[in-house]
């Protein structure tokens, strides 16, 4: 590993979110949501919007960086970067790119944003009506295998088969996320607790996933501001320091038609060791984790690949008791996450990780020092982030 890393070379200093809506619930346009989240993040940091000199995003955000820079009247845009790949794989990657740009001197104050109004554009859970299809999707879509739920269910099934995992493990992940959302008034599922009986009785989306194993579809926007160590120390909020950031993909994980050789993998086997080496820590040192839940099965395999348990310990580790605040071994998705707070493509998970370091979560882990984010399991590329106090 290179001795020069982004560790402690940048910090998260501003957090901004719009109200989170059910899909179709946003009363204003997606671009306006993006602007609102950015303004709130600036306000939180105690800076003006024109202090921003860099923009980073992911998942082909529709709200173009130049339109944002123009709308905000930024005097000097010094960084405009997009993390390749879809899904939530780039959330931590965009933060890592922002931190790298700050460490390298490209920019001093970078905003990372994600805005989604699935009600105004296409839904991730639906497939467009087409007459013909070509390329890799042509080997799956015509057979009714076209959505993330459907491919992640296949990979989860294989993992469960190989390691004798039952429904209990993935149910525990859904129950933990819903438990945490009950403390978070911002959560779309606040006031709607989930029981195991409700989980079991909910409809199948695609076996082995019940309705509650699947992320929501929402409208809203979120933004995060990063800056240099010198500036971070004088900001309004306690900085959440970048301890490590990593991005990438394992061998041929992007192969089409389910030909990724390591099939039941969440795609972190080469990345996680790199991440821990940069941070100088091990899994046991992590106080709290936000793991992107597209679907519970991919959270389960991510916990394994980040060293929280072995594949054969999944049934012992993935329990409601272990994964819930305040007494669990690893409080997971402490704001409710994509399942129960809001599906803001995982940027809300990064915001929650920073809150844990600030000490302002609605499920605050006592004396949380090290706060981890896992972005995009079972897609390619993926990314990770570790913050510390």
């Amino acid at each position, binding site marked *: 590993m290179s001795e020069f890393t982004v560790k402690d070379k940048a910090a998260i200093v501003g957090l901004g979110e719009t109200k989170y809506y059910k899909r179709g619930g946003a009363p204003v346009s997606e671009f306006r949501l993006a602007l609102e989240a950015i303004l709130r993040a600036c306000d939180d940091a105690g800076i003006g919007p024109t202090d921003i000199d860099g923009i980073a995003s992911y998942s082909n955000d529709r709200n173009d960086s130049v339109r944002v820079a123009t709308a905000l009247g930024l005097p000097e845009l010094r960084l405009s970067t997009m993390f390749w790949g879809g899904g939530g794989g780039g959330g931590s990657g965009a933060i890592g790119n922002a931190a790298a740009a700050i460490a390298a001197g490209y920019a001093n104050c970078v905003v990372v944003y994600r805005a989604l109004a699935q009600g105004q554009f296409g839904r991730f859970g639906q497939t467009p*009506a087409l*007459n*013909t*299809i*070509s390329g890799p999707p042509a080997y799956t*879509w015509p*057979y009714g295998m076209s959505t993330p739920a459907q491919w992640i269910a*296949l990979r989860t*099934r294989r993992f469960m088969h190989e390691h004798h995992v039952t429904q209990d493990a993935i149910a525990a992940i859904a129950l933990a996320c819903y438990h945490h959302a009950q403390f978070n008034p911002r959560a779309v599922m606040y006031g709607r607790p989930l029981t195991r009986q409700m989980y079991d009785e909910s409809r199948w*989306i695609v076996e082995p996933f019940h309705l509650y194993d699947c992320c929501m579809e929402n409208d809203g926007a979120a933004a995060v501001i990063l800056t240099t160590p010198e500036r971070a120390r004088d900001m309004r909020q306690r900085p959440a320091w970048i301890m490590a950031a990593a991005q990438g993909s394992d061998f041929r994980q992007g192969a089409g038609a389910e030909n990724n050789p390591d099939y039941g993998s969440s795609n972190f086997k080469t990345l996680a060791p790199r991440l821990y080496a940069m941070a100088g820590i091990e899994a046991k040192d992590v106080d709290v984790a936000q793991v992107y839940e597209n679907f519970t099965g991919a959270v389960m395999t991510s916990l394994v690949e980040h060293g929280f348990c072995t594949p054969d310990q999944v049934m012992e580790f993935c329990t409601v008791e272990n994964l819930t605040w305040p007494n669990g071994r690893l409080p997971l998705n402490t704001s409710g996450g994509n399942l129960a707070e809001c599906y803001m493509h995982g940027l809300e998970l990064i915001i929650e990780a920073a809150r844990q370091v600030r000490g302002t979560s609605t499920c605050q882990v006592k004396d949380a020092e090290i706060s981890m984010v896992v972005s995009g399991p079972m897609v390619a590329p993926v990314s990770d982030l570790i913050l510390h106090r």
Partner: protein
Amino acid sequence: MPVPVATRDGVDREFYEGVKRHQLVVQRCGKCGTFQFPAEWICYKCHTMEPGWERVSGRGRIYSWERVWHPAHPALKGSCPYLVVVVELSDAGNIRMVGNLLGNPMQEVKIDAEVEAVFEDREGGTLVQWQLAAARA
């Protein structure tokens, strides 16, 4: 549902010509023997360009499966539940193909069960589906 067709750049043309004849023809590198699916312009193993093609038997084993209950496409309303299988082709370097398992959608599906390819002609294209090998015997 959309009908599968070859890409405009021609990378997978031989596969589609094969299924039209009800034959499974997949990419196999003439230099190093590596199978790869879906097709690419280069062999990922030895980096030979346009690695070559080979007809394979269409016999394989179920590697993973799912029963889909929620229609993600308007054309599937009324068709749920249905079964999707990932099949590993044992005589083709364990490349995998995705299709539907024919028969009762509520049948018990077993990983490692032996299956074989069945060609289903649609207007404008041909689908590759899978049936249990035992079903034919």
